[in-house]
């Protein structure tokens, strides 16, 4: 079970094949809110990855001592403590960035991916596989966030990580920024297009249709 191959598989499966955002549609709220620029998306991905890995490690280490009836409370306390630490670190060293991320770092405590991994995996597995699994989920989340964040920053303001990549029309260049990209709906569109693309490439990711459209018999 604990061979290198399965660890590698645990790490890479959530990147594309079982991506928490595009396949399981988890963590959408923060994915929409913090992707207006690449640096906030990057910070958010790192914060979430750190939280989910540490939480998985701690919960997995004490998994035999958590009473089953209050396990959710215990998990949330551990996750929330880690989130507070991350939030304080961000406020201490990256104050401007933490102001732009506003409440969403604190909201990692309620992120479905964190609780989902601790509840479904870390609670029943040893620390090392749990942390690798959590790292994979965090990276899968980060991958989607970066993609959406890069698209939105590039087309919304012509920048990437704050550097002007596409010359703006009002500064003598050719690129007219698409202001819609900086508004929340565009994240929905991009995420929808991403899910659509992924499910076209890997059809096994697509859900079963709820019902088949029936064909109406032609009346002659």
């Amino acid at each position, binding site marked *: 079970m604990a061979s290198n191959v399965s660890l590698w598989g645990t790490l890479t499966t959530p990147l594309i094949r079982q991506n928490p955002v595009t396949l399981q549609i988890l963590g959408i709220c923060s994915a929409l809110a913090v992707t207006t620029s690449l640096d906030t998306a990057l910070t958010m991905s790192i914060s979430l990855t750190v939280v989910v890995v540490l939480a998985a490690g701690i919960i997995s280490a004490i998994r035999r001592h958590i009473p089953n009836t209050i396990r959710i409370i215990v998990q949330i306390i551990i996750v929330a403590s880690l989130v507070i630490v991350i939030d304080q670190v961000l406020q201490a060293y990256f104050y401007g960035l933490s102001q732009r991320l506003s409440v969403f770092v604190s909201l990692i405590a309620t992120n479905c991916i964190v609780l989902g991994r601790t509840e479904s995996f870390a609670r029943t597995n040893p620390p090392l596989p749990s942390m690798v699994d959590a790292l994979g989920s965090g990276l899968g989340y980060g991958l989607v966030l970066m993609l959406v964040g890069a698209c939105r920053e590039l087309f919304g303001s012509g920048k990437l990580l704050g550097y002007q990549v596409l010359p703006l029309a009002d500064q003598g260049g050719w690129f*007219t920024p*698409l*202001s*819609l990209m900086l*508004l929340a*709906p565009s994240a929905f*569109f991009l995420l929808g297009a991403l899910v*659509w693309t992924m499910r076209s490439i890997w059809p096994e990711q697509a859900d079963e249709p709820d019902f088949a*459209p029936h064909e*109406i018999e032609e009346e002659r």
Partner: protein
Amino acid sequence: MTRGIWDRETVALLLLAAAMPLAVTWLLATGMQGALRLVFVLIAAGLWHLAFMLARAQPPSFAGALTAFAVAVLAPAELGLLPMLIGISFGVVAGELAFGGWGRNVVNPATVAIAFLGFGFPAAPWPVLPIQLGWAAIAMAAIGMLVGVMAWRIAVSATAVLVIAWYGGMLAMPFLTAAAVVLVLLVCDPVTSAATDLGRWLNGLLYAALVMVFASGWQGAAAVQVAISAALLTSLAAPLLDEIAMRRWLARRKHLG
């Protein structure tokens, strides 16, 4: 759905035929510039219909031409080719073709494309519709209702409210023109408007009410912008209006036993 000569394309062609007075008036008013814009939008929409036919075996529809015409008339002016292409692609693909083609879409692709361009490029000026387009819209509504591809309940209820508001001085003439053109081109679209009798009355009333609210309360909004926003919200509310009509009918049936 097919019944006799009536299939999807008959409806689309009759809608196109009804739009001819509006198209001719608009081309006379805008000249070469308008014609080029229309050709560009037609090609862009047509290519997407072609792409979906090849990729998904989805039959293309003449309704795509109506969509293209509506976008050419109503989209913000002075946009470059690339923004225009992004807008029309988004509207046609995400508004119509992704759902399975004309007849299965939830919102009108032209409304989506124009709203997308309006929100995406807020600096671009909205077109000012020449006043004769309002008269041409009446002709289009008349043909559409006569051949039965436009719901007269929507047109009558919306027009009644709008004309009364204009007569009472609550609606300026540019707003009335824009509201009339958007009403016939987008709101009366048989796919995305309400489909029940009561729902259609409510659909027209809701559209007119939204136009009046936006025209009076939205500072600095252009006439076309007001009408498009009202059309977008109305088409989103159309299923709700149908649901209200059906609930009311069911409740009355139960009451009768």
